[in-house]
């Protein structure tokens, strides 16, 4: 056995705190180590060549790279040594960056620790055995979860490549948040004019199947071979028979506040959320429908000439296989009722940006008139408050929601266009207008549209004499401000969907403390997750405006297509293996497995001359987490690449 050790400086990332030359010298003295050296950037082209040349020159057969975390460059070096003729599983990474140089200051102690880490890796690699990659077939179909602009763009991109796509949307129509917007910044394109053609494209594509009013029930399997159960909730309207004529909701006697218009307008108990809905097929809201409440009425059914309405239609569960999944579930608005100073959400004339968006929309509940929701009067003085729920560790989220500065500027502009006598006041912390033509747009709103920008927070809003009194600070002039406003618009931040965690657990993808989905790498794998085959797009990962959302949608599509075009997929061989002789069939591993990758199997025990049950690992599903090896009392189940022997060897080397 000839082990080679390669110590990386990582520029000054490691070398500033760790004496890398000394680490290499000490490594060379370790048993079985035949060669050791250091280099400035081991992952660079010359660095990799250095490894390859050393392998050839010294006939090395196992390699230790002392550099960064294996999650960053293990793959790089596996490919590198494979090219040099060594089995890619005969390398080990000693993480002397994240686990050492980045977290220590004392050079001497850090160097000693780095040497120890290398010693462990050498001990481990000496027990490694060559492993072979496994291959699984690929189901040539993509699931897109979410039918907003993000999911729509992803579905369109995939359908262009002529692969089938299934889109699942929870609401009765696709379109998402963008369908509610009036105009988009900074170009002031009408949102509907750029979105609805895309909605039609996706609906008409022969490669795309859309399930609206549907939810994901269960996801099993793995990359290339996911099995997904989709619940198609009953609309009580037969999609094949309905002509979308609208006679049903014209007759419906029940009126309830419209969710689409955030309660600013009304809808019926049988309704399409908005006129441009795709599909343009109504749904019965069972909670409010008289037929479901009292078994009386049924007016809509009588009105339907196509006989499409059937109160007895039940939910339907569809099970389908997919090769890749794109998550495009979007965001929801921060609930501002935690802000006592803004009235705990009790004042009718304190609205959110999305309410404003509906009002200013010519096809919205007020037909484009900006009015006070309390009394319907036209507004003159409007106060906009930014960072509501964003950049607020006390009551909201610590992060910046990124688009509120821009949509507020847009609202101030639209206000002036709709009500020329109006005046906009914007309270802000900082103006974050980092995007193409964004800063120019904000400047235009200030200079040409006369919006008054006040740097400071609002301390209190209260109603007095039919007006909202807004008290705040202007920190630039150092004065207190009091504005008598007709309307206050809160730029509420973007937060994760309420059911984000439930879906993440189904998909086995990680999420952060804000329930936003976590990408595999913030810079180098921004649309991937650590669960291969599951990709992210749009605001379910972090707040994004429309351009960024569309960009990530296309990026995720490319990643998914990259999987689909392969005949078969490589699977890492770092999975659990059962030694049938030792297995006592206690089945503790089956309970411990979070991936449902272990099942009981009946085998013929030749020694005992009878049949018995043992654990069996389903190779394609096992993710190599190692939970099972920890719970196995008989040490019958072992993890390739992290075998009990390898770990023991490391511990003994300490």
């Amino acid at each position, binding site marked *: 056995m000839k082990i080679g050790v390669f110590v990386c400086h990582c520029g000054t990332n490691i070398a500033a705190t760790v004496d890398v030359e000394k680490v290499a010298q000490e490594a060379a003295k370790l048993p079985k180590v035949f060669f050791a050296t250091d280099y400035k950037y081991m992952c660079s082209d010359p660095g990799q060549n250095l490894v390859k040349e050393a392998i050839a020159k010294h006939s090395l057969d196992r390699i230790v790279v002392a550099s960064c975390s294996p999650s960053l460059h293990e793959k790089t070096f596996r490919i590198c040594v494979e090219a040099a003729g060594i089995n890619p599983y005969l390398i080990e990474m000693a993480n002397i960056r994240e686990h050492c140089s980045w977290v220590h200051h004392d050079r001497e102690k850090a160097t000693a620790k780095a040497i120890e880490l290398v010693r462990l890796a050498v001990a481990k690699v000496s027990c490694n055995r060559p492993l072979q990659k496994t291959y699984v077939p690929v189901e040539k179909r993509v699931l897109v979860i979410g039918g907003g602009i993000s999911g729509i763009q992803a579905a369109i991109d995939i359908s262009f490549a002529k692969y089938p796509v299934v889109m699942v949307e929870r609401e009765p129509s696709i379109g998402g948040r963008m369908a509610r917007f009036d105009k988009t910044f900074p170009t002031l394109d009408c949102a509907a004019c750029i979105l609805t053609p895309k909605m039609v494209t996706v609906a008409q594509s022969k490669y795309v199947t859309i399930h609206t009013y549907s939810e994901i029930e269960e996801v099993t399997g793995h990359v290339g071979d996911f099995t997904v159960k989709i619940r198609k909730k009953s609309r009580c309207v037969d999609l094949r028979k309905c002509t979308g004529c609208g006679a049903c909701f014209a007759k419906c006697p029940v009126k309830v506040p419209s969710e689409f218009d955030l309660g600013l307008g009304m809808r019926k108990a049988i309704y399409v959320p908005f006129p441009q809905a795709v599909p343009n097929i109504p749904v019965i809201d069972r909670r409010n429908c008289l037929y479901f409440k009292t078994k009386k009425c049924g007016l809509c059914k009588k009105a339907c000439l196509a006989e499409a309405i059937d109160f007895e239609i039940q939910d339907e569960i569809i099970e389908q296989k997919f090769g890749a999944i794109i998550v495009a579930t979007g965001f929801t608005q921060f609930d501002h009722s935690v802000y*006592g*100073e803004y009235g*705990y959400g009790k004042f009718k004339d304190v609205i959110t940006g999305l309410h404003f968006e509906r009002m200013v929309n010519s096809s919205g509940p007020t037909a484009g008139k900006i009015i006070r929701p309390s009394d319907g009067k036209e507004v003159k003085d409007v106060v906009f408050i930014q960072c509501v729920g964003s950049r607020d560790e006390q009551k909201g989220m610590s992060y910046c929601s990124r688009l509120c500065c821009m949509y507020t500027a847009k609202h101030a502009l639209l206000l002036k266009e709709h009500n020329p006598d109006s005046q906009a006041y914007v309270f802000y912390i900082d103006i974050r207008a980092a995007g193409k033509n964004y800063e120019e747009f904000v400047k235009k709103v200030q200079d040409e549209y006369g919006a008054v920008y006040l740097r400071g927070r609002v301390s*209190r809003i*209260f*109603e*007095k004499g039919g007006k909202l*009194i807004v008290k705040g600070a202007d920190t630039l002039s150092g004065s207190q401000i009091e504005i008598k406003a007709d309307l206050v618009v809160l730029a509420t931040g973007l937060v994760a969907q309420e059911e984000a965690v439930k879906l993440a657990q189904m998909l086995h993808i990680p999420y952060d403390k804000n329930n936003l989905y976590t990408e595999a790498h913030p810079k180098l794998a921004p649309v991937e997750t650590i669960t291969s085959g599951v990709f992210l797009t749009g605001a379910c990962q972090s707040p994004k405006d429309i351009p960024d959302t569309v960009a990530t949608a296309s990026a995720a599509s490319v990643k998914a297509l990259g999987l689909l075009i392969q005949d078969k997929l490589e699977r890492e061989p770092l999975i659990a293996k059962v030694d049938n002789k030792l297995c006592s069939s206690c089945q503790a591993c089956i309970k411990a497995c979070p991936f449902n990758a272990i099942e009981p199997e009946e085998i013929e025990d030749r020694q005992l001359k009878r049949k018995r049950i043992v654990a069996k690992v389903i190779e394609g599903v096992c993710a190599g987490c190692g939970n099972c090896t920890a719970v196995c009392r008989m040490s019958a189940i072992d993890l390739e690449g992290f075998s009990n022997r390898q770990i023991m060897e490391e511990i003994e080397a300490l």
Partner: protein
Amino acid sequence: MKYAYFPGCSLHSTAKEYDISARAVAGALGIELLEIPDWVCCGATPAHLTLHLLSLALPVKNLLAAKKLGNYEVATCCAACFSRLKIANKFMEDDLEHRGNVEEIVGAKYSGEVKVRHFLDILVNVFGLKNINQRVTKKLSGLKVACYYGCLLTRPPEVTQLDDLEDPHLMDDLMKIIGAEPVQWPYKTECCGASFSLTKTDIVLKLSGDILQMAQDEGAQAIVVACPLCQSNLDLRQGMINKQYKKKFNIPVFYFTQLLGLALGIEGTKLGLEKHLVNPLPLLREKGIIAKR
């Protein structure tokens, strides 16, 4: 029901009537208030402006004295005392470094074990509105009051843990139970100018003037407070406010204990009503709460 009572300096001087009425109400309800022997200043505003450790050591000294009385919670009426005692407790509970320093100064071990409550909190949340209701003999019907909480009762919320931060309602609830009509108004926790009363009186005249104006605009005939400094700024300075801003405010400013006392049938003379600068008696007579001459 027994409490270690910390009156604080105001209740022995400018806010004597708060002390008198609190004791009268406690007596009527059977709540025993044992005054902490040899209590000292809570530190109020000056201590924490002078030396942080002093602002913790002074309340801790008082809390240690309360501990000697027995296993009682501390009751206090003054919002500043309440705040200083609670803040000291918070530091002694959570902050080992400060705890060590303060223990060295006071020469005793203490880790925030003596709990502190505002008298309003005791009445509403411990004694209970239901029980108070049963003892009410005279409803204060027709008296429209603005309940004014000031800055310290609810802030900082993680320390005081009393009522809603922006829209408190404990006093409103109490006033409703005794038959008064609390008005809905937005200035419940606005600043009255606090201790600027002595150093920059102008500020107090402006801020307290705004509060009086808002109370009047919203239809209040009187203001109810739970803080001696609030009372002093709104009552004592009302004349100067009238002069400065050419107003004719004549708004009595009661302690909640005084109105509760009246509702419990305690005579006005035993509640220190005569100690206010804005004479409340005409209003109380007009509403039939006290007998007409």
